[in-house]
């Protein structure tokens, strides 16, 4: 495929453990507009964990953008990956924006993938495919939070198509679970009672962890439903993990709940909880 520079973003990251037990970003290849500068070590409870923010120099995802992201975590590595800001999907006239992600966790690896929300603008079209390959002893929390649009500009589910899909499998190829949505408001309104009802934002969280951790988490997590927020938990076959769905009237409550969930997972796998979120986040 030949695309103009800046339309075909590439990001490859490979994490390994160094001789001191610290996770280092051994391989980094990036092509604009995707940017990662370096791994940081700002997490006080897990100081050997690599923390990475993915940025986009182009601002929003634009018409015709194609992004490819590949992340590999080696044995016993730990990483926390987020985005610098919300990902805006801009209005489109001719085509769509697409992203393909592949994230592989080797034995004993630990990954927190907690990006800021996605905001699909009016008449935007976005599709993504994410493949999560998780070794049986590895632990992953993978989240996505999606807004209804630029609510403060009067946009609410005015996008044309928002269709991310996730496949979780083992290194052997065995499929653990698939999670996919295709939100085309002109076909089936996201405001339908069975989808989001009066809520404007949603979050999807995939947690994959060894059976003992999954069982502990499941025992401690309970579905919630109020006028402002809901949370449901589904337990995957053979305790391979959980799918948590959250909906709400804004992203803040959902992001807070996902951080609590991540903290609980970190406690059951690493024995420590998440530090307080930075005040500017």
């Amino acid at each position, binding site marked *: 495929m030949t695309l103009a520079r800046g339309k075909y973003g590439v990001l490859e990251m490979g994490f390994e453990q160094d001789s001191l037990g610290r996770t280092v970003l051994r391989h980094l290849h990036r092509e604009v507009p995707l940017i990662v500068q370096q791994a940081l070590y700002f997490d006080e409870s897990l100081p050997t964990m690599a923390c990475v923010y993915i940025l986009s120099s182009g601002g929003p995802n634009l018409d015709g953008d194609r992004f490819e992201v590949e992340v590999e975590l080696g044995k016993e590595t730990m990483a926390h990956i987020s985005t610098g800001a919300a990902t805006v999907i801009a209005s489109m006239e001719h085509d769509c924006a697409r992203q393909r992600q592949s994230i592989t966790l080797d034995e004993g690896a630990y990954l927190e993938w907690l990006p800021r929300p996605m905001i699909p603008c009016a008449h935007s079209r976005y599709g993504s495919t994410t493949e999560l390959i998780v070794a049986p002893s590895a632990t992953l929390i993978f989240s996505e939070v999606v807004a209804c649009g630029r609510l403060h500009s009067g946009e609410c589910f005015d996008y044309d198509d928002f*269709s991310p*899909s996730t496949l979780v499998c083992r290194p052997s190829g065995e*499929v*653990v*679970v*698939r*999670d*996919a*949505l*295709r*939100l085309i408001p002109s*076909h*089936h309104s996201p405001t*339908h*009672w*069975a*989808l*989001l*009802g009066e809520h404007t934002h*949603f979050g999807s969280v995939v947690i994959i962890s060894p059976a003992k951790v999954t069982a502990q988490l499941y025992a401690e997590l*309970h*579905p919630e*439903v109020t006028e402002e927020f*809901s*949370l*449901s*938990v*589904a*337990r*995957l*076959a053979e305790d391979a993990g959980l*799918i948590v*769905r959250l*909906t709400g009237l804004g992203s803040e409550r959902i992001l807070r709940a996902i951080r609590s969930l991540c903290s609980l997972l970190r406690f059951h796998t690493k024995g420590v909880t998440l530090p307080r979120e930075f005040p500017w986040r």
Partner: protein
Amino acid sequence: MCSDTSTLLSLFRLAWISDSAFPVGSFSFSMGLEGAVESGLVGDASTLEEYVVGLLYNAAECDCIALIEAFRAASNGDHSRLVDADHRLLSFKSSHEARAMTTKMGGRLAGLLRSICPTALTEEFYRWGAEGVTPTTYPVAQAVAGVALGVGERSLYAAHLYGVANTALSAAMRLMRLSHYTSQEILYRLSPLCEELYNLYGGLSIEDMTSFAPTLELALSLHERGKSRLFMN
């Protein structure tokens, strides 16, 4: 999309396997409605109708796509494609209740077909299920039944959606104050949705299956943790 080749005999038999009295165990499941009623998410005929609409869309975007794929695969003798559709459908069922419902009902349908109308296909499908080659989800077992009984694709599609709506409404009769009259009114009112959903989603491929219905997922989650136990989870 394809033309329907159903005959009176095949339609008679489709009505037979789609009847709630046909012993596949649909009466044991509420499709999360028990949790929804217990938590107050569903409390009257209006919210019940919304719940059933949600179930129908959810079925059209997921189960019915597997049903069509499996039907076409079985019609063409493509067994590997049939088994792939079965596995793919199960991989979208993240909740325990959804997995239990589809595999229990599918397993029973496969067993009944093998005993009552043995053909090479129904025998093989049952054997694959028993040997763990295929998970025997209900829509895929229905597709096998459709091919074995000579039912057309569109008729089978309608029968599946009818089964979804009827299972939920029958459960509702046992869970909440609802007259037979009201439940049948809901079923009648929602019947045109079948054609609409087939036109919207019937042409999608197996790659296009989705499974996103947060309120229905919440109901299943509440049911797993709830105290009320009239239905299986």
